[in-house]
């Protein structure tokens, strides 16, 4: 039963475009889905290796910019008479580049911060995101700076007769859903394996992990690369859906949003970022739909967040799991009580 439940859930989500004709709601579901993918990637680092990456949006933004630039083509004058250029490439290739470039950046960050843990890892990651934002803002020749890159090609996979166009929202929605499922499977397989146990060991007790022969730094780098690659993919989806990208994509608030999604949903659980992401993706839109004052909307958002963290400090998913296992166990004592009477 519980084996088929996730697939039932996926099937239900797949059917959404068939009965939902409201494109605004579909748009909210697409952006929320993209953020859920990013939150899942953050959860791999924060929830399983225990390292808080507060610059996670950098990987997302790098993916977005890489995919945009590769699909648009660019020409940069590095030296007075030395230019580097690239002709526009197909979108699927650009998205692949986004994953690779984000993954490589993740590798660099993982290696760079190979000895820093906890607070220091947080500082390294924040600084990194800020540096990338400044580059995106000031390297006008490459990124157009605050003028933003626009006219980014829409999602088109394949070519000629086999062209698959994602111009319409239902198609984009299904692509985002497929990507999310793929990322979920990758992360699930990873954390339930030898490599995943090594990552969790780093979170739980680093000295003990080393004492049983685990090269913790190696697994931290692996986790960072996979996490960055997935975040880069999310960024690429975002870029080709919104079709404009500016340096504001690197704003700290986006990282914070991802962290909120992971923490409230339940870090270190596979379903956590999905639950947290869905909650904090839809709540702002739902509040807006209720047509109350914007200030009140944000107050409600904040109160909700505080309430979740206060009453369910470990997150929604662990709280539900705890409740369920409590209910499973409770019939036994009840039965023994009955027999005593």
């Amino acid at each position: 039963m519980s084996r088929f439940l996730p697939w039932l859930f996926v099937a239900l989500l797949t059917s959404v475009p068939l009965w939902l004709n409201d494109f605004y709601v579909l748009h909210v579901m697409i952006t929320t889905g993209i953020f859920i993918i990013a939150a899942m990637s953050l959860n791999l680092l924060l929830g399983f290796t225990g390292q808080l990456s507060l610059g996670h949006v950098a990987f997302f933004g790098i993916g977005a910019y890489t995919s945009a630039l590769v699909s648009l083509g660019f020409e940069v004058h590095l030296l007075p008479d030395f230019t580097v250029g690239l002709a526009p490439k197909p979108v699927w290739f650009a998205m692949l580049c986004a994953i690779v470039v984000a993954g490589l950046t993740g590798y660099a960050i993982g290696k760079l911060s190979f000895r820093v843990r906890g607070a220091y890892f947080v500082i390294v990651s924040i600084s990194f995101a800020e540096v990338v934002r400044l580059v995106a803002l000031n390297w006008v020749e490459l990124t157009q700076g605050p003028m933003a890159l626009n006219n980014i090609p829409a999602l088109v996979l394949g070519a000629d007769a086999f062209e698959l166009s994602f111009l319409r929202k239902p198609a984009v929605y299904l692509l985002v859903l497929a990507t999310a499922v793929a990322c979920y499977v990758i992360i699930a397989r990873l954390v339930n394996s030898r490599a995943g146990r090594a990552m969790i060991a780093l979170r739980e007790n680093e000295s003990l992990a080393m004492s049983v022969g685990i090269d913790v730094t190696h697994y931290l780098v692996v986790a960072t690369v996979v996490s960055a690659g997935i975040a880069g993919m999310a960024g690429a989806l975002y870029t080709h859906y919104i079709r404009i990208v500016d340096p504001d994509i690197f704003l700290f608030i986006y990282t914070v949003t991802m962290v909120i999604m992971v923490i409230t949903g339940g870090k270190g659980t596979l379903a956590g970022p999905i639950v947290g992401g869905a909650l904090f993706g839809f709540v702002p839109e739902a509040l807006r739909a209720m047509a109350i004052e914007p200030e009140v909307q944000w107050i409600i958002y904040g109160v909700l967040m505080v309430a979740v963290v206060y009453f369910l400090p470990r997150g929604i998913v662990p709280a539900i799991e705890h409740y369920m296992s409590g209910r499973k166990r409770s019939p036994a004592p009840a039965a023994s009580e009955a027999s005593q009477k």
Partner: protein
Amino acid sequence: MIAQAETVLSIDQVAVHFGGLIAISDMTFSVCAGEIIGLIGPNGAGKTTAFNVITGFLKQTSGDVRYRSKLLNGMKPYEIAKLGLARTFQRTSVFQERTVFQNVLTGLHCRGRSKLWDTLLQTGRETSSERELVDAAHEILRFVGLEQRAYEQAGTLPYGEQRLIGVALALAVKPSMLLLDEPVSGMNPSETARFVKLVGKIRDSGVTILLVEHDMPMVMEVCDRIVVLNYGRIIAEGTPAEIQSNPEVIRAYLGQGKKRA
């Protein structure tokens, strides 16, 4: 019986200084294959420091540590563990939030054969490797007597059993030598007796053991040979009987009595 056994671990003129503090001034001793050696001494004598140096958690200021004639200087803890030199920790050290079984499975890391690609593509090697690890984990839990606790969360078990998890983790490395840091501290006499039996069983399976312990009856019972440390240097070395009657050792533990003329 162990007179001509080969030397597995040799510590040669090791010194450890923390700034001006001398934790170990000059330590030289060796351990032969199949021995159970006790490292004892008053608090602050440098026993745990010695353990940390041997297992790579701390760098010595000078001197050499050799394991099976391989120089360990500058090697990382996980590299030393892979050589078959495993340790436990003084404070209870388990992966708290995981079950006992998952703890041991994590400890079996180095025995796994699956690569990252095997994991992502769920290849045959992934499943066969995982199956081997699961079997090995059950075997280790049977060996230390924690089978009944396999699916309980490690952090919730009583102190003595968490200690056993520590030993199970170290055994998972498939060590040829095991370093136990105060394994029975905080255990009651019956738990200690059970643990002594376990230590004997581990030695019989061909593992050399070096242990630090404050529980003197236990040390005297299990050890073939004892090394006594005080103020960072070795003050005595010998069989339990020799150590018990060594005046220098008595002085280190009990202080010097008033000299009577």
